């Protein structure tokens, strides 16, 4: 009987990460900033996207890929405002790159300024999947409790931005913006933090200014011009 050991030493997601890097580069060259939005269920991703679409209306082009377990309710909310494709995972708890590629095809590969990916409501699994985003944004609502960052370190470590939503509920819930920010910045000191109440339109323009800034930096990086590919 022969015994042997094959040494591999390879990240089991290496191929997926390489594919994501290629797509990120392609979309970046075309002038599209890809934004991956992650949160627990009900943190307000769709509401923020609605407000963002209204703020950008007539100025900036955007499209949305909506990940959903089963229903297409979120996609229906956004469809009157912007091009939307629904990505159904068939029960899986996170999106993977092939779904994003299919969604882009369904939209006809649009040369938009912003491509938002509304991920499945889950703070664990989506953190481990690169969807070719340039910007990973984690949303946390004031109704969730301010101990989330410590419980989900990977999510807060791999995101560049934290958006605290439903700020209007602050007087009614035991939530401290300072505490959650401090907690999150222990995990990720360079984390950019925004607060808003998208439902009332508060804080949305700061968030959109930031996105435009990030978009300008992307264009500068690739020496591209908006809408030109």
């Amino acid at each position, binding site marked *: 009987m022969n015994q042997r050991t094959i040494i591999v030493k390879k*990240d089991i997601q290496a191929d997926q990460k390489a594919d994501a890097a290629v797509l990120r580069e392609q979309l970046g060259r075309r002038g599209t900033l890809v934004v991956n939005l992650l949160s627990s269920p009900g943190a307000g991703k769709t509401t923020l996207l609605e407000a963002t679409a209204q703020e950008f209306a007539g100025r900036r082009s955007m499209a949305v890929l909506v990940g959903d377990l089963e229903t297409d309710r979120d996609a229906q909310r956004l469809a009157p405002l912007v091009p939307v494709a629904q990505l159904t995972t068939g029960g899986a708890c*996170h999106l*993977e790159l092939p779904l994003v590629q299919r969604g882009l095809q369904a939209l006809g590969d649009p040369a938009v300024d912003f491509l938002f990916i509304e991920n499945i409501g889950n703070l664990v699994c989506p953190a481990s999947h690169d969807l070719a985003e340039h910007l990973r944004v984690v949303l946390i609502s004031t109704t969730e409790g301010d101990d989330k960052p410590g419980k989900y370190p*990977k999510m807060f*470590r791999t995101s560049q931005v934290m958006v605290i939503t439903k700020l209007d509920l602050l007087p009614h819930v035991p939530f401290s913006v300072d505490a959650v920010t401090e907690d999150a910045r222990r995990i990720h*000191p360079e984390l950019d933090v925004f607060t808003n109440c998208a439902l009332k339109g508060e804080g949305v323009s700061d968030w959109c200014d930031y996105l435009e800034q990030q978009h300008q930096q992307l264009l500068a990086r690739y020496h591209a011009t908006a809408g030109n590919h």
Partner: protein
Amino acid sequence: MHERSLVQRLLHQVQQIVAEDGGGRVTEIRVQVGDLSGVEPLLFQAAFEEMVSDLFSSECQLALDIVPVMAVCDDCGQQFEIVDFQFQCPACPTGAVQVIQGDEVKLISINVSSDNPVEGVAS
């Protein structure tokens, strides 16, 4: 549970690597799981036990090594272990650090046995 999709990916990779290496019976798969990999070792182990017989014998073992998160400081270059997910250099009060270990799931090695060299070629 994304552990299931990771285990599935792992098993397919092992199958391919072993086939390219001449085939044989896979007896042990060694995997390194980092504390910042987003993988829960117990769930990973359970998914493995459930799925291993799809491609290999249920005798095939999973050897799971948990590795701590290591980082390097951008400012002073010191390497250190991240404890309790505090991403801060012990020497520098501010400044960014880069994770150099512990944020991934790695296939380390595969033990294969073959009764004789011509037999047991994986398809």
